Structure formats: structure tokens, C-alpha cells
């Protein structure tokens, strides 16, 4: 009952936020303010919104049925592709970060394996996982290109990702008491990572370059998605709300600062 209430509240907030972001981004497209990036982003927001509506109706009508590949998976794949496309339009030259991309691809593969382990849905997890891996790799390459992390921060991020995957794998093989403790540790780790990227993305909105702002905000969005897929209800809804709210930061990052808008008008 509590989970149902949280679900309804989460979807209601998400719908309101996404509608505002959508109308604002359409207004920017009409004003020809970074129209290509904003168009991809607006299409992505429409995808999230429609997917949320589908899931809300599905959870109301068939709360206990999970199908191996439901239509909203196509929507999710489209959102990942559109957000990646939006991010790539910011970076003029091809982004090269082979070691980082390889590590992200391995992390994504581990994530797909974990999803399959939890749900047993092979087809769905592999198809959406591959597209999700593309989004993660694009985010990591953009972070590397915009040079927002120091070497120590990259090492910490890699360690956190590795710890998360190892602990989640370990949970399959151990007793339930230790399982709970490890689960709590993972939630704290994911929450810390999301909050760190959130704060960095928010702080970057005022003074950083377009590349830094978009790289950080899109990475915060991806981090919330990773955390959401690794969580059980009701914590799932917290990260779900987190990634919806992230669209606001993403919009502001593309929209630009006051000074940039004035420069564009000149």
C-alpha cells in the first residue's frame, strides 16, 4: 500500500517536472537556441514521459505481471540513444578515451549480467543493456574530454564501480543477514555517487563551460539510472525521481548561462 502511494506520488511529480522541461525545451528549439541538441533532448524527454505513463498504467492494471520484453523497453532504448545523441552534438571533434570507455563497457556488461541474475529476462536485459552501455560510454567519454575529473577522482570512481559490482555479485552467494548489510552499503555508495554528481552538475551551471556542464549533468542522469536499476522498491522510486529531476539540470546545462545567451544575441 505504501509502495503504491509512493509510486503514484513519484509518477505525478515526474510527469509535472517532465512537462515543464518539455515545454521549456520546445520553446528553446523555436527560439533556435542550440536547436539540434535541444531537439534530441526534447525527443528524449517525450520518451521518458510516455514511458512513465505506460508504466503507471501497467502497474495499476497488472501489478504482478512482468513480461520478458515489454513495449516500454523500446522507449527506454530510444531515450538512451536520444540523450547520447544530444550529448554528442556538444562535442565537435570525436572523443577519444579508450581505457575509460573499455572500463565502462566492462562495467556495463557486469550490470547486464546482474540484471539477468535478478530478473532472468535475457532478451530484454541484453537489448536495453547494450544501448544503455552506449549511453554510459558516451557520458564517460564526455567527462574525459571536458576534463572535469582529476586522476584521483577517476580512480575513486573506478573503485566505487568495481566495489558495487563485486558486492552485488557476492550477495548472490551469501546468507540473508550479511546480504542486508551489504545491500545497505551499496545503497549508500550509489546515493553518494549520485549526490556528488548532482552537486557538481549544479555548481557547474553558473561558471563552467558548456562541455563541462552537459558532461556532468548527463553523467548524473546516467548515474541515477544505474542506481535505479540496481535498487528494489521503494528505493527504486527515489532514484527514479532523481533521474527525472536530473532532466531539469540537463535542460539548464544546454540552455546556457545568462552571459552566453547575451553573447548569442549580439
Amino acid at each position, binding site marked *: 500500500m505504501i509502495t503504491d502511494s509512493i509510486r503514484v506520488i513519484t509518477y505525478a511529480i515526474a510527469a509535472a517536472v517532465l512537462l515543464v522541461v518539455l515545454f521549456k525545451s520546445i520553446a528553446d528549439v523555436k527560439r533556435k537556441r542550440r536547436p539540434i541538441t535541444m531537439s534530441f533532448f526534447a525527443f528524449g524527454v517525450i520518451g521518458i514521459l510516455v514511458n512513465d505513463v505506460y508504466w503507471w498504467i*501497467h502497474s495499476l492494471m497488472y501489478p504482478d505481471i512482468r513480461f520478458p520484453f515489454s513495449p516500454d523497453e523500446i*522507449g527506454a532504448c530510444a531515450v538512451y540513444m536520444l540523450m547520447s*545523441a544530444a550529448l554528442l552534438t556538444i562535442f565537435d571533434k570525436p572523443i577519444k578515451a579508450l581505457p575509460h570507455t573499455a572500463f565502462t563497457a566492462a562495467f556495463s556488461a557486469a550490470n547486464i549480467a546482474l540484471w539477468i541474475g535478478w530478473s532472468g529476462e535475457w532478451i530484454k536485459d541484453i537489448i536495453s543493456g547494450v544501448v544503455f552501455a552506449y549511453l554510459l560510454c558516451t557520458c564517460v567519454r564526455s567527462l574525459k574530454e571536458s576534463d572535469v575529473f582529476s586522476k584521483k577522482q577517476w580512480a575513486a570512481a573506478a573503485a566505487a564501480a568495481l566495489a558495487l559490482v563485486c558486492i552485488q555479485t557476492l550477495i548472490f552467494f551469501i546468507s540473508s543477514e550479511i546480504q542486508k548489510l551489504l545491500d545497505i552499503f551499496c545503497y549508500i555508495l550509489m546515493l553518494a555517487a549520485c549526490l556528488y554528481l548532482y552537486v557538481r552538475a549544479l555548481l557547474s551551471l553558473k561558471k563552467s563551460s558548456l562541455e563541462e556542464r552537459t558532461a556532468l549533468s548527463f553523467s548524473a542522469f546516467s548515474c541515477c539510472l544505474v542506481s535505479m536499476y540496481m535498487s528494489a522498491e521503494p528505493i527504486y522510486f527515489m532514484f527514479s525521481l532523481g533521474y527525472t529531476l536530473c532532466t531539469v539540470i540537463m535542460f539548464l546545462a544546454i540552455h546556457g548561462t545568462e552571459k552566453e545567451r547575451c553573447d548569442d544575441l549580439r
Partner: protein
Amino acid sequence: MIYVENILICIVIPLIIASFFVKGNVRSFSASFVIGMLVCLVSAYISGTIDVIGGIGSEQTSIYISPMIEELMKLLPMIFFLYIMEMNDEQLILCAVSTGAGFATFENCVCLLTGDTYTFSFVLVRGLAVGVMHIVCMAALTFGLIMARKLKVLSIPSIVGAFSLSVTFHAIYNLLVSKPGITSYIGFALPVMTAVILYISFHKLIEE
């Protein structure tokens, strides 16, 4: 027993013959209408095969599988019209809407001819809800493609985005009408309401 292929032949042949005697938009309309009917038959074959092989059941097939298969099959001619025939916006809308209409017409014909006797209210719902839904899905798909082309962002992500929009809309409709009661009434009203919104949006888009 009435075979669906026989129904298709009976409707398609006069349309094909007629299209030789007409030109321009009328020919495009009748050709797309025929394509829509063929797409409907192929989609039914694929969905049916998946249902039989997977042992999913007709209800779950209509909720989860059919929207994906049907919209994918409808997307293919649109890609052909867009990239191979390089149609302009108006032609694209014409062909999309007639493909959707052909699809809906054939589905309705098969439903009425192979089933039992239906009441007038059922026939009305079938025409206004299911019939309009396929046209709306095609219109939404085309709307997405035209917008992407206008904004110079027509690429794989935009096509997948437009496709996902039509699939999700179709899936929402099938979900809502799968259970009797208030949800089914919302489902039946959804295509007509969306059709009105899309009609206004299309006219604005063409004027711009």
C-alpha cells in the same frame, strides 16, 4: 471457413486495378492503403507465430507483442517512403495516414467476418477506437519523422524515438482496453482525442 488471405485478395485487387486509372495523390493513397493491408496480414502472421512458439497466450500477445510487431511493420514502408522515395512532408503524411487506414480497415474486416454477430455499439467502438488508433499511431510516427527532418536531426536515434512513441501509444491503448470497465472507456476515447490534437498540430506544422 473464411480465410484472411481471401478477404485480402477481394479487397486488394479492385484497389490495384483502380490505381492504374488514377494519378498523383489518389494513386499514392490507394497504393499505401494496399500496403497497410499487407502489413496487417504480415504482422498477424508474425504475432501469431510468436504466440504459438512462445506459448504466450492471445491476451498477453495483444498487450505486449502486437504493438511492437505491428508498429515495426508499419515503420518499414515509412522508411522506404522517407529515404528511397524522398517524399515531401505532405506526401509523407498522406501515405502514412492511408497505410494506417488500410491496416485498420483490414483488421476490422477480418474481425467482423471471422467472428460472431456483433452489436452496433461494438461495431462503432471498433471503427472509432481501433480504426482511429492505427491512423493516430502512423500520424504520431510521421509527425516525429517530419519534425526530426525539419530540425535536421533525422538519424537513427530520432527514428527509434518516433518508433518508440507509436509503439508506446499503441501499447497504452491495448493495455487500457484489455480489461472491461472505466479503463476501457478511457482507452476507447484515447485515439479520437489524440487524433484531434494531431490534426491541429499537423495543420500548424504544414503552415509553418
